[in-house]
């Protein structure tokens, strides 16, 4: 397994922070988007990567965060930071709700993937037809710059905050790889019965995993709402985010610390490139995502992180031969 040290993670985060300050305009926006997707993917990775429970409906958590952020601020005048905390907690709660129902019935594999998708769709339809959530018109957030409002005239500061959350995601994943809880997750992914035989309460472990997963992805939703200042049901609960979170984690390396971050950067980078090269033909970037997903499942089931590692291991061997 690739197990980066904390110091390596710190260097990566600082490097990204330095890059952030050199960026402006479209590139800055792209990088903010990359961090939001990376965070959503980190959430997906806790459940789908470490615990082996592939969700097709992480939009449910993303949307919970995004709507909490938007509704609390516009309807109840709640402070942005407080709304952020509530949004994250709501993500954990939605996770616990879906998890309680699904895991009690013992759903896993394709059944779990399908039921998460259904939950996200129900949320999307409800949000789309309820006045409380702004209905089909969505919710527009008020533009107010300043730290208390979690909006910044200089968007680099927002990028730093998004990066901060990604750093938290990295630390959570790092902790998983060095803790009992993480070992239990991998154990139940590999063999649930054997894990039970060793005294692992698989239901409780799965519940914790889906709550943490939901919280992280909800945080991404909160940041999304705050960054774009507009959400509707198709954006917040749409299948696009379920898919991008899953793609980034799997392409980068599911069940690894750095996988979701690397996957998000590579995927969205390639997506932008395709958009540029295809002169605005719709769907080309997503098509490339699909091709990359199929290729990575076919040829590198452990993702880019492992691919890089195995290439890295092979290279010195060649040097020795020479």
């Amino acid at each position, binding site marked *: 397994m690739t197990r980066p040290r904390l110091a390596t993670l710190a260097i990566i985060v600082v490097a990204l922070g330095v890059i952030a300050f050199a960026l402006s305009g479209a590139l800055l926006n792209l990088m903010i988007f990359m961090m939001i997707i990376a965070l959503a993917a980190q959430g997906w990775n806790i459940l789908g990567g470490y615990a082996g429970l592939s969700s097709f409906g992480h939009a449910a958590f993303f949307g919970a965060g995004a709507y909490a952020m938007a509704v609390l601020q516009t309807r109840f005048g709640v402070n942005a930071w407080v709304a952020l905390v509530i949004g994250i907690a709501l993500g954990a709660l939605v996770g616990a709700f879906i998890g309680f129902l699904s895991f009690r019935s013992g759903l896993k594999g394709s059944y779990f993937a399908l039921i998460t998708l259904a939950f996200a769709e129900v949320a999307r339809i409800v949000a789309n037809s309820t006045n409380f959530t702004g209905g089909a018109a969505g919710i527009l957030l008020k533009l107010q710059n300043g730290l208390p409002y979690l909006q910044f005239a200089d968007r680099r500061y927002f990028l730093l905050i998004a990066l901060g959350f990604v750093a938290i995601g990295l630390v959570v994943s790092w902790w998983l790889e060095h803790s009992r809880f993480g070992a239990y997750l991998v154990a139940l992914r590999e063999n649930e019965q*054997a894990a039970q035989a*060793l005294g692992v309460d698989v239901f409780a472990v799965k519940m914790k995993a889906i709550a943490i997963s939901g919280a992280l992805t909800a945080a991404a939703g909160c940041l999304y709402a705050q960054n774009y200042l507009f959400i509707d049901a198709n954006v917040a609960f749409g299948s696009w985010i379920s898919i991008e979170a899953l793609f980034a984690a799997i392409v980068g390396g599911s069940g690894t610390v750095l996988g979701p971050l690397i996957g998000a950067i590579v995927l969205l980078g390639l997506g932008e490139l395709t958009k540029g090269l295809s002169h605005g033909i719709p769907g080309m970037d997503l098509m490339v995502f699909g091709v990359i997903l199929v290729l990575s499942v076919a040829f590198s089931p452990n993702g880019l992180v492992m691919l890089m590692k195995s290439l890295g291991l092979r290279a010195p061997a060649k040097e020795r031969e020479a």
Partner: protein
Amino acid sequence: MLEVKALTKRFSGLVAVDQASLSVAKGSITGLIGPNGAGKTTLFAMVAGFLQPDGGSVSYDGRDITALAPHVRARQGIARTFQIVQPFEGLNVQENIAVGAYLHTPDAGEAMRQAAEIARRVGLGADLAKASSDLTVAGRKRLEVARALATRPRLLLLDEVLAGLNPSEIRDVLPLVREIRDQGVTILMIEHIMQAVMNLCDKVYVLSQGRMIAEGEPRAVCEDPQVIEAYLGHGAAERLRAEQAHA
């Protein structure tokens, strides 16, 4: 220490285990033998909590544990190995064992230290960093035992730990089982290899077609005509069926 009373399990009309009872004395090695398909593994699964019986009870240390979930039984000191070994593929040998050790310590360093020690005890000391999928069959069987031992069991259920091993590997594992018992762990084992049963077990139960047909000291049980019938009769019935199919 373990008391199984009239345990029954039906699978859609078919009775897999029929009113089977057995008791395991503290500090003993007790064997459970029987022809293929006798229901031994089903019985084991009910003792470990992976299957709910349709009738009967399981008690452990004088307490009824029939309704408890497997992980709760593990916490009370019942560990099991699986007939078909299934290591956690994503983890190396030491980490595999540590999953068991985590039952008594939340600390990763401590669990890994205990895992290394147990690995040494079962003869996997040199393979700590190996991917579990790279182990030989014998190695995986040892890993299975090591993982169970790491939970510090008081009762260990071994499901055919010797199956698939060659004679020299079997000779290596026999002392390991005895050593585990000598360290205070009570053992109930399913085994096909009679040499091992004769060698290890203080008492043997024979299960045939879901029913307990004999019990006692190993040598006596092997001479029991009912037991011989159960093994040979099974083969004879199969031969007869084959002949009829040809006719």
